[in-house]
């Protein structure tokens, strides 16, 4: 079973993402921000879905930190962005993000992006 980490400071978004992914047969690790995510990296992670605006450590910094780790160098990292964050999207890509999901999104949109990058 593939393991996906969802990183978001919004508990409801985390809950919705985790719920959707678990229903689709993935195992899910939840983290509330970048710092929390890095401390929860113990198990093998196949993919990361991260929000950009978060306290303590934001999404861009998290992506950079993950890409620096050998285990996470090539895994898909998808960022959650909003329409108004075109600039941030580019920052994320430059940091090594694989793709993005535009908020607000529906569960099926989330899954289609996951299936696009994780096989």
């Amino acid at each position, binding site marked *: 079973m593939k393991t996906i980490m969802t990183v978001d*400071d*919004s*508990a*409801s*978004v985390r*809950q*919705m993402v985790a*719920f959707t992914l678990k229903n689709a047969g993935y195992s899910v690790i939840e983290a509330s921000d970048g710092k929390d995510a890095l401390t929860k990296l113990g198990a093998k992670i196949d993919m990361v879905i991260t929000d950009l*605006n*978060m*306290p303590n450590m934001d999404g861009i910094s998290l992506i950079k930190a993950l*890409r620096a780790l050998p285990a996470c*160098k*090539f*895994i*898909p*990292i998808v960022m*959650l962005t*909003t*329409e*108004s964050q075109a600039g941030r999207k580019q920052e994320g*890509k430059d940091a*090594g*993000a*694989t*793709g*993005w999901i535009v*908020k*607000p*999104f529906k569960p099926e949109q989330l899954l289609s992006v996951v299936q*696009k*990058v994780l*096989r």
Partner: protein
Amino acid sequence: MEDIHRQAFRDEAADLLAELETALLELEDAPQDSGLVNRIFRAMHTLKGSGAMFGFDDIAQFTHEVETVFDKVRDGLLPVTRPLLDLTFQAKDHVRLLFEHDGGDITAYIASGATILEGFRALAGEGEASGAEHGAPAAPAPAQEAERERMFRIRFKPRPGIYSTGNNPEYFLEDIKALGSAKVFAHFEDVPPLRELDPQSCHIWWDILLATTSSESAVRDVFMFVEDECDLSVTPVEAACEEKVPMLGEILVERGDISPEQIERAVAGQRRLGSILAESGVVPAKSVEAALAEQSIARDRQDARKSAPEAASSLRVSTDKLDRLQDLVGELVIVQAQIKQAAALLGNEAVVNLAEELERLSDDIRDSTLSIRMLPIGSTFSTYRRLVRDLCSSLGKEIDLVTTGEDTELDKTVLDRLADALIHLLRNSIDHGIELPAEREAAGKPRKGTIRLQAEHSGGDVVIEVIDDGKGIDPAKVRAKALERGLITEHTELSQQKTLELIFLPGFSTAEAVSNVSGRGVGMDVVKGVVESLRGNITLSSEQGRGSSVTVRLPLTLAIIDGLQVRVGDQGYVLPLELVEECVELDKQNLEVCTRKRIVNLRGQVVPYISLREWFCFPGPVPAIEQVVILGMNGQRVGLVVDHVVGEHQTVIKSLGPVFRKLDGFSGATIQGDGSMSLILDVKRIVNMALEQAGRESER
């Protein structure tokens, strides 16, 4: 969205609003603190994003505008002022009201919300222009493409570092293939020598030809995440091949692989452009290959377009009319043969030419007439599906019917007469072959049995197979049954294969108890009879515990056979060419030695023979030199002695009139080029009759 998510968000929103209030109060004391501005922005942002996701659209819309303003504050475009703070406090309260009155009548709040937003807009003031830019609608989606297949030329050249973004080029190729039928050409030219190779970089790039009903934007969407990490071009090639098939050079130039001048220089030689270009290193071989493939696809598509109108419409014609047409064509072919012979005798060049022209035409008419009668065997498969379903439910079995080769074509008459035989074979497999689900499980097989019904062309024949993965046939039981029926005696020794073939004997049934499925008076002997009447043969193989398979081999059509024409006395006969192995001269010396045993020595091998002259009781002297046609039948060889072998040619079969139908040993008649009639010999029958006769003689 489920209510649990909505409720979770409501709780979270309360926290966010509290956080918003604290941050606003702190900001009042320290307007320069960008950290506080960020906190406020983030809270608004989450309210907006999650609000929309969980169905709080009014809140999302409202907070969107507030967020936009705070984005400007964050970027230093707007100062933190008292009016701004006042408005934000109002906005926060407004959001809380919206949450609390979710679902209720909120008309009263809309007005106050609008006032607040107007205040924000006035504050943002000059920011209007950039705001409009944000809200600009995306380019209108291209009108829904019709369900028409188009072709795209895609060049996907990822940057070497593509892997470091967690993207895998392979996935994009898979996604493209999922859109339609794709031809993918990988370019390896840029892969460095091994010692310089960086395995973490991507050195390969691809040319893809995609035929798809998807739109260009759908094709581009596949590469959405890597637009900036690759060179991508998606070009529709439809327009280019509408009028004519483009030349290889044109395609290469269009693709930007080469300039027209380079082509000019290369064409100076005489060989094929593609190999010249590849060899001279102007273009990588892969590029040429990709362009050539495009050319051939374009050509195919053009051909398909040309022939499409004919294929599109069809006509129902009664088989009687077709039979009549086929008869007439038969006559025509015969007359044509006569004319050809007459023309040759006349020696007039003009007439010979005309006769040849007529032959070409009548051959075409014959072929197309026969092809009209051809139907795909798949048209009968659906009834079998129903049969399997019905039998399964009445017998409590679970069976998958897998069919292949549905488009294999067969003469309608053959198909019609075959239908019952196939039904019987399927019934056998279902009733006797496939075990009950529980038995299968006990035997370590899947509960569900599989019956394969497959058809394919093999040379001039059609091969139809019924294969099941059931319990197979037990030779011991077959033998016991045959003994019981008196078909063999205790002492009869048979190979395993011969034992299995006993079930083709009349009166044989492998069913231990007659069920309501089998036991309808149709046995394998009837099936064998039907197949043989269609000039086909049937074979059986079986492995105990693994299943059995029945193979039926049939000629494509009943109307024409490839025949070997022979003469005995002044009479011509036709033998089916498929059975003929070779023709040799009869060695008189051997004949005299073995004359009583009717055996000919063929390169050291003894082959029994039948003399047609004797068989038909021809009067007159035996010619000095006779010829033997060696026939192969069921793995055995039999000779047929004739006066003279004329040669092979296609023969249109005319059925014998009712008076002659009971005659054994003839399968039909045909008319020769000189107008004389030849009988078509049913050599299998003749050989069997001869064997029976010999058997009776030896008993006496």
